[in-house]
């Protein structure tokens, strides 16, 4: 096989890891408790800016900056729930999409106002792994590993712990779960905090590969929503499969054609699959 094609496929797998990591928290919020945060990728952007400032401007150690970012975006997640989602939880679901759409505008513009439109880079470059004549970015390998670990941890958390079970129960019926002795407000808060923290985790790994700018959310936002839907909402394994399908289309399409066309293929693939398999790629 063509060595460059092989490299494209390998990098596609690693891009899939990045996308799967981004989709992880969204799959918990959107997939499991069925709340739409259209501004999810912009919360990741907030985390990236925090790490950039703590690490590059205030000289914190990188790992400490990461912990701070995870906590910060976790708190942002709680704020999004309390201030935006909770008041409209009982109304038509489309309102959640529209209200968090307002949040998307707010976060992007506020970031522009505070930080300008410059692309900022923390200046940390992880080494490139050379494997025969194939080059692999170790930052992507790390993101891939964390995504796998995160998905497994989330899976067991949802299946094996009381809070996880309560989260799955609230997804099935928001009202009945109260009769079973679960405080819904508490569970929504916990889930939003975890979802936000996962966005913060994604920010830690993205900052190693991408420059941060106010509109970085637009690069990933639509894609990760589609991955959650393609994988079947709330299905962590399906989400992984969908992330890899999309990233392979993007990688191979980009190799044979151009980057833009590869995204055209990916989005068309999403539309077609929505018609063919509306409950996810792995659904029966």
């Amino acid at each position: 096989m063509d060595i460059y094609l092989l490299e494209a496929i390998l990098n596609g797998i690693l891009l899939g890891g990045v996308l799967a990591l981004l989709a992880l928290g969204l799959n918990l919020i959107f997939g499991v408790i069925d709340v739409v945060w259209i501004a999810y990728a912009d919360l990741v952007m907030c985390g990236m800016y925090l790490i950039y400032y703590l690490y590059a401007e205030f000289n914190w150690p990188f790992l400490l900056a990461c912990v701070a970012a995870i906590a910060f975006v976790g708190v942002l997640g709680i704020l999004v729930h309390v201030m935006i989602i909770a008041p409209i939880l009982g109304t038509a679901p489309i309102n959640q999409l529209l209200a968090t759409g307002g949040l998307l505008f707010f976060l992007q513009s506020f970031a522009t106002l505070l930080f300008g439109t410059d692309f900022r880079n923390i200046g940390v470059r992880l080494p490139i792994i050379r494997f025969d004549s194939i080059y692999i970015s170790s930052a992507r390998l790390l993101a891939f590993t964390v995504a796998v670990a995160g998905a497994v941890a989330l899976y067991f958390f949802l299946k094996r712990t009381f809070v996880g079970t309560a989260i799955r129960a609230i997804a099935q019926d928001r009202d009945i779960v109260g009769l079973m002795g679960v405080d819904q407000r508490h569970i929504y808060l916990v889930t939003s905090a975890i979802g936000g923290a996962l966005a913060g985790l994604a920010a830690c790994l993205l900052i190693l590969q991408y420059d941060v700018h106010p509109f970085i959310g637009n690069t990933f936002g639509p894609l990760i929503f589609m991955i959650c839907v393609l994988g079947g909402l709330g299905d962590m394994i399906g989400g992984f499969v969908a992330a890899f399908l999309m990233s392979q289309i993007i990688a191979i399409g980009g190799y044979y054609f151009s980057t833009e066309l590869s995204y055209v293929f990916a989005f068309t693939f999403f539309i077609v699959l929505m018609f063919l398999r509306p409950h996810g790629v792995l659904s029966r």
Partner: protein
Amino acid sequence: MLAILLAALATLPQVVAPYFMHLLIQILLWGFVYTSWSIMGRFGFVSLGHGAFMGVGAYVPALLWNYFGVTPWIGIPLGISLAVVLALVIGYPCFRLKVVGHYFALVTLALGQVVMLSIVAARDVTGGSLGFTPKAVGYSWFALQFPQKVYFYVIALALWFGGLAVWYWVDRGIGREALDAISEDEEAAATIGINVIREKLRVTVISAALTALGGAIYGQYMMYLNPETVSGIAVSLQIVFAAIVGGTYTALGPTVGALLTISLNEGLRVAFGTNFIGAANTIYGVLLVLFIIFMPRGIVGMIEDATKRGWRIKPL
């Protein structure tokens, strides 16, 4: 009342500066596009991909004009036809397979991205992200190009009135009851004999066709097209949000949305200069969140409610 409004709008070009003329044309054109969106949006079919129709409507006549010398009088109907085909290709399977709510929003979002990225990808023909400039020939009815703003003011005004007329036509038509029923409960609507797919397709096609027409005239007026500004995700979202802020369920709501968002943008730009890039959208974003939470019927909707209640603000 209407006569006074018409007279006022007709005398405006004589008294205002070109800059305000430009703003007025923008408000009328965008007001028309927002109204077109709300023709389907008001029934709960929230499309996040109207940039697709606008982009097709704008690019087809411009490309035909530059490469083949085809007059926009033919190019614009062709662009609208293509937008309608696109609406049918996406709309039919969506409605057939009951892709609704935020799933429908995501499918249309993907459609908008497909069109925008296709325009960028075909950069040899369309100029890609650098944009596309139709060949200018000066004053010409054949090319539908007028250096004087007053012509486009009249065109935009006519378009806007036309858009309102279509809005009322849909509102008063028999299909309106059917669509209301569908937006309440599709299954129940189908059991009382409503052809759900046909009714939904009808408003979708009307909405897409008008949006494409708006895109075409916008292109003819601006004489510059850019995939981001006529077709990107930002445009699609801008259409949705401006319509909602103004009021999706009333005829004048989307126009008020256009008036408010464009004046806010320009006002802040003039007040703060370019030092505060993003200030307008920051305020805009906060307003959107507040609107959805506290007055989902928009400004005009709220005023209507208030007049009915005799201006008492109902406690939440």
